[in-house]
């Protein structure tokens, strides 16, 4: 078991490293080969040639790509020095460089955005896990009946709705028409937990509407698969009461794939619910990277993307480990 976990963690580190290489190459090579200069972006609007040269030197944009990448990695783990003649800046670890836009450390931007994304993702996750799995189980147990068909029709409708459209409709109704949630903006949990929840609730509902539909469909399918298994028939034949057959035997097996998908979804949500954050104007990781993209702020894009990928890889590892704990058959792989 310990060996399995170590192998998975090492595998995850390799994947993360690969992602960092690919992302780095993409963001530093593509503008270079296609003829746009990151230094110009950094130096501000219509900079002088001297300013561009200074920025190029300071950021080390003239160095070979391998050196640039090495410095980038070094920055993350041990920090790095930016030298431009007399003025030297030390960027402490974890250093993802400085924003081209406002010259602030990218790490500060990430830590600022992180609580927002966490609040959004975790609140929505609680909602959609409870409602989605609940509806899925109920649908499976009442297969073909009115409640099942109604729930599945609704779920198919919900997965066909773009989250930004439901978000806009939600905003229009609860925030502007009925004024139940006026002036939605992020309030830190520690400042005012009530206001925090009140301002996030519409976004939670919008995200949870989509995800609970997906989870209801998934749970139902998985539950129906399990309920058709021989051992369930055996359990019933032994005379176990139905609530024990379902609760003890079927549910455990049926929820394993649900937990797998949940781990991955949570990982990618923590990496930034881009569309929801953009629609509701929450400056979490997703919206931050969208803003960075529209301003050509490469270090911020790079930092947030790698950070987001980190969540996904971490989620992958946790899911694999969870699987190994629940189902010993997967361990050797």
């Amino acid at each position, binding site marked *: 078991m310990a060996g399995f976990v170590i192998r998975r963690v090492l595998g995850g580190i390799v*994947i993360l490293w690969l992602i960092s290489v690919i*992302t780095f190459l*993409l*963001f530093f090579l*593509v*503008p270079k080969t*296609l*003829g*746009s200069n990151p230094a110009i972006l950094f130096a501000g609007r219509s900079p002088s040639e001297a300013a561009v040269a200074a920025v190029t030197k300071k950021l080390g944009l003239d160095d070979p790509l391998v050196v640039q990448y090495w410095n980038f990695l070094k920055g993350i783990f041990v920090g790095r020095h930016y030298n431009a003649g007399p003025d030297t800046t030390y960027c402490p670890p974890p250093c993802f460089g400085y924003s081209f836009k406002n010259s602030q450390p990218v790490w500060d931007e990430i830590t600022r955005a992180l609580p927002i994304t966490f609040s959004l993702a975790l609140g929505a996750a609680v909602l959609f896990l409870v409602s989605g799995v609940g509806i899925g189980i109920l649908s499976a147990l009442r297969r073909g009946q009115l409640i099942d068909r109604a729930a599945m029709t609704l779920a*198919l*409708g919900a*997965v*066909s*709705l*773009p989250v*930004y*459209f439901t978000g*806009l*409709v939600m*905003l*229009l109704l609860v925030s*502007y028409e009925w004024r139940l949630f006026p002036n939605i903006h992020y309030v830190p949990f520690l400042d005012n937990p009530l206001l925090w929840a009140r301002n996030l609730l519409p976004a939670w509902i919008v995200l949870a509407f989509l995800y609970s539909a997906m989870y209801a469909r998934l749970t139902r399918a998985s539950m129906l698969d399990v309920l058709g298994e021989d051992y369930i028939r055996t359990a019933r034949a032994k005379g176990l009461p139905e609530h024990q057959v379902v609760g003890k035997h079927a549910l455990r097996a049926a929820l394993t794939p649900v937990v797998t998908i949940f781990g*991955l979804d949570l*990982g*990618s949500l923590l*990496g*930034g619910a*881009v*569309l929801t954050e*953009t*629609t509701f104007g929450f400056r979490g990781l*997703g919206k931050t*990277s*969208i803003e960075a*993209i*529209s301003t*050509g702020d*490469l270090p911020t*894009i790079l930092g*947030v*993307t790698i950070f*987001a*990928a980190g*969540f*996904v890889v971490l*989620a*992958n590892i946790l899911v694999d480990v969870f699987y190994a704990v629940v189902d010993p058959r997967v361990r050797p792989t």
Partner: protein
Amino acid sequence: MAVPVMVEPTERPPSPSARPVAGRSLWRIAWSRLRKDKVALASGAFVLLVVLVAVFAPALTALAGTTPDEPNYDLLNPINAMPAGSFGGISADHILGVEPLNGRDVFARVVYGARISLLVAALATLLSVVLGTAMGLISGYVGGWIGGLIARLMDLLLAFPLLLFAIAIVAVIPDSAFGLGGNTLRLFILVFIIGFFSWPYIGRIVRGQVLSLKEKDFVAAARGTGAGPIRIMVHELLPNLVAPILVYTTLLIPTNILFEAALSYLGVGVRPPTASWGDMLATAADGLFRVDPMFMIVPGVAIFLTVLAFNLLGDALRDAFDPRGGG
């Protein structure tokens, strides 16, 4: 020369009852189930309608006497530049109203938006089906470290913060590259990115099917006659994969429509003035939807209905091809 071992389904001996029994291939069973499925027929018809609308967009808008790009400032309220009249300026000339700020015909823009949506989704799906089928076949049939590597790659891509990555890639590509420029380049990039990130959906299905199919006798028989791996993959396995590939292709198209709309919504799709549904919603999201909700509702409903129709059709196809299903 290897001889294809696929045997045509043999006619059964005549049953005692006088009624002759028709050969019931998977396709025939599926078709007979689909024919009875009203939801499937309705969604199929709607999909066809949307495709026709997209193909004949110029004729359709000409028929309605509108164009997608022509501004109509006279139809706007001069005070706030919102459509004059109720429900976003709906009138006999502009059946879905006009756009705020510039008065362009919403009907024409939605119809033209269908072109972008379907074109990108269809081409991207084609790309991912080709890639996914090839990778799934190789990963499943060849196995070994190559197969394992491809399988891990698919897991990785499926679990990736796709949207973020896709946006970032689109963003770093400048206005002209690879000898292309403007919206041609952007369409090309959209297709490539969406296709590249969604092939693992197909790949994983194909791989799973191949893993179980390759143990079957007909594959062993083909191998026995001296067929090489490529011949087995293409001539023996592929024909058996057409049904699942068809089903998941139908389910991938709506996913890709949503993907394209999301990219356009985030401002990395085709550039205005070319109409796209996501871009219309983005324009509406920028404060306009509070004053003129119709302008948000029309493209939103267009996305919803199109995606829903494809989803319903895909679900129906899956049920129809399900060997465990009744009927």
